[in-house]
């Protein structure tokens, strides 16, 4: 099983590779009220992971271990939280994060065909990232824009009433 540091199987330690980013995360956690009490420190885990993902883009094992050590928690506990919340990812995410809504409204209006078209054109499975780390593809449940169903989001941009035919154009817009 890959530890998710790199999609091509090559592994490296993000913490050693990016001392500036590591310092940023370190300073953030140091500013929290961390003590020797593990049970109390658990309360700071989610915000620390939020910040870590914001800084590094994703949470590979080296970053998880760094956060675990800072909070005196176990690696397995940290991974437990990451694997519970779909927001967190231990795999690198592409420059363009394509999210296809498959919530009820989008689903009945043909979101599946849209998702299939993205998969076909990007040669990706749901939840994967292209080797050049340009595109990530994921499905999500309801972004709260059901009147525009089916909805696709590319990073923060929303596309409404998407059909399979529009998919190629959406991809081409990503430069």
């Amino acid at each position, binding site marked *: *099983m890959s*530890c*998710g540091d790199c999609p091509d*199987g*090559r*592994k*490296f*330690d993000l913490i050693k590779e990016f001392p500036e980013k590591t310092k940023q995360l370190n300073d953030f956690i140091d500013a929290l009220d961390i003590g020797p009490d593990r049970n109390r420190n658990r309360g700071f885990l989610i915000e620390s992971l939020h910040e870590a993902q914001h800084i590094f883009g994703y949470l590979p*094992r*080296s970053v*998880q*271990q760094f956060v675990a*050590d800072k909070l005196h*928690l*176990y*690696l*397995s*506990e*940290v*991974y*437990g939280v990451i*694997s*519970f919340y779909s927001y967190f990812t*231990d795999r690198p995410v592409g420059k363009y994060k394509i999210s296809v809504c498959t919530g009820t409204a989008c689903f009945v209006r043909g979101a599946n065909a849209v998702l299939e078209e993205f998969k076909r054109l990007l040669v990706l499975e749901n939840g994967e990232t292209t080797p050049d780390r340009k595109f990530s593809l994921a499905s999500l449940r309801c972004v709260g824009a059901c009147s525009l169903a089916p909805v696709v989001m590319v990073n923060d941009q929303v596309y409404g009433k998407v059909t399979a035919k529009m998919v190629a154009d959406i991809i081409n817009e990503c430069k």
Partner: protein
Amino acid sequence: MINLTINNMPVKVRKDSTILAAARKIGIKIPTLCHFELDCFSFEHRIGSCRICVVEVEGRRNLAPACCTPVAEGMVVKTNTLRAINARRTILDLILSDHPKDCLTCEKNGDCELQHLAGEMDLHHVLYEGKMSEYQLDLSCDAIVRDLDKCIMCRRCQSACNDVQTVGVLSGIGRGFRAVVGPADLMPLNESTCVFCGQCVIACPVGALTEQNCRYKVWRALNSGKHIIVQTAPAVRVAIGEAFGMRPGTVATGQLVAGLKLLGFDKVFDTDFAADLTIMEETTEFIERLTKNENLPILTSCCPGWVKFLEHQFPELLYMPSTAKSPQQMFGAIAKSYYAEKMGLKPEDVIVVSVMPCLSKKYEASREEFSPNGIRDVDIVISTRELANMFQEAGIQLNKLEPREYDHPLGESTGAAVIFGVTGGVIEAALRTAADWLSEKELKDVNFTAVRGSAGLKEATVKVAGIDVKVAVCSGLGNARRVLEKIRNGEARYHAIEIMACPGGCLNGGGQPYIHGDSSVLEKRAAAIYKADVDLPIRKSHENPYIKKLYAEFLGEPGSHLAHRLLHTSYKARGHLCEVKND
């Protein structure tokens, strides 16, 4: 005190009791699954996740989980109403809907709490059928097998791993149908910081965590025509009888030897002999460090789980443990040198089998430093449970055998060696020898009772030949961590510390017969070990005549060059992360 009634019977219990504890007090059994308790270590896992213990409480709309609902004054509880029973059946049904039904061939067959429960609850078919979990079997390490398809998410292993042992390898991961208990990223155990203590195996109610089966290797070796010898650890003799209907706490040494001879071993030897040898080497090292007053405290090094824990978690303290190998490995080294030579055999033509109360011993025997010239000192390690299983398969009824004696020369041992199986035993054995050596006279009262008892951390100052020796005894790695942190921060000072990974010592090892939370069994095993000590004519390691002979004929003296080459080892820092391989 609180008064309540359960099934119309009045009961008075302490304020902090649960309904479950109150019911037990008056002999009412409420089924449990995720609940796990070991009284003698004041440990209770009451997560309330399985809901199999639900009962009716008057005035409460929903059923209450008995294991984690506190009692209240005037509470009226009914445990056997149709509503409670039906709810339990539904819960069991739902658990079974994602649990393999291969009980007949499961490693845990006959020892599975889920299986017992299904029997007790009169369940005749499984109502719900649907998707089943499909995980890869984790066979990565030499000690423990993880079969997550069987996991019922009770998290007893997580509690043992994180709260008791503070090893922190197992956690609940994922969500919904994909939730499971395992290491981060579901990495193979051998890549994790797991120390293979096996407390998770002891805690698992089902077959999700079991030992690596090495029985087939022993059967094959027994039929290979090679010279095959076996060693038995101290804690095995006080537990194996349990698998044959003997009362817990029965010392079955003679029957154990008889059984092993019937299985076909050429010689039946005792790890206790090597425990005496360990005391010779370790005490020599201790006295040297004590008189020079350097590198103190000395930490015992018999427990491979504890050694691996130290290598991962406290790499800066690696100078502290004694360099003496564990008794298992000393036995192997002597068997493949001194003994093989005596028998006129090449080391590779002697097969050494160990019977251990421990799963980490399987891992220890596979450590590369214990395979000089590529030949393992200890070839195969099986647990107490595995040996019981082999006896059963061979039709050997231990309880009906006439006791027999260990063979010579590696079968003679002392009371000091047998107490290695209980927490405090190694330090007591070392003190018996140290006292004689330091004072140059014979100690009359050999009982150092201050280091006995099941407490997880014991401290004592013992007068040895006029010196106040400050010792500590830890069992359970959580206790070890607390003591080591104090030492690292300069908050505590000791001369010697004994550490055993399993709470209570080896008698509660990961390879012992399952006790299903009945900790009175552990107390009986401990009492049996001290009885075995008293019953032996010689109770000090250095008075073992065969040990004296071994030094006279072969090793020279304790700490000699040859002794160092054969009987000592070194440790390496292992760190948190597995080694990252570039491929």
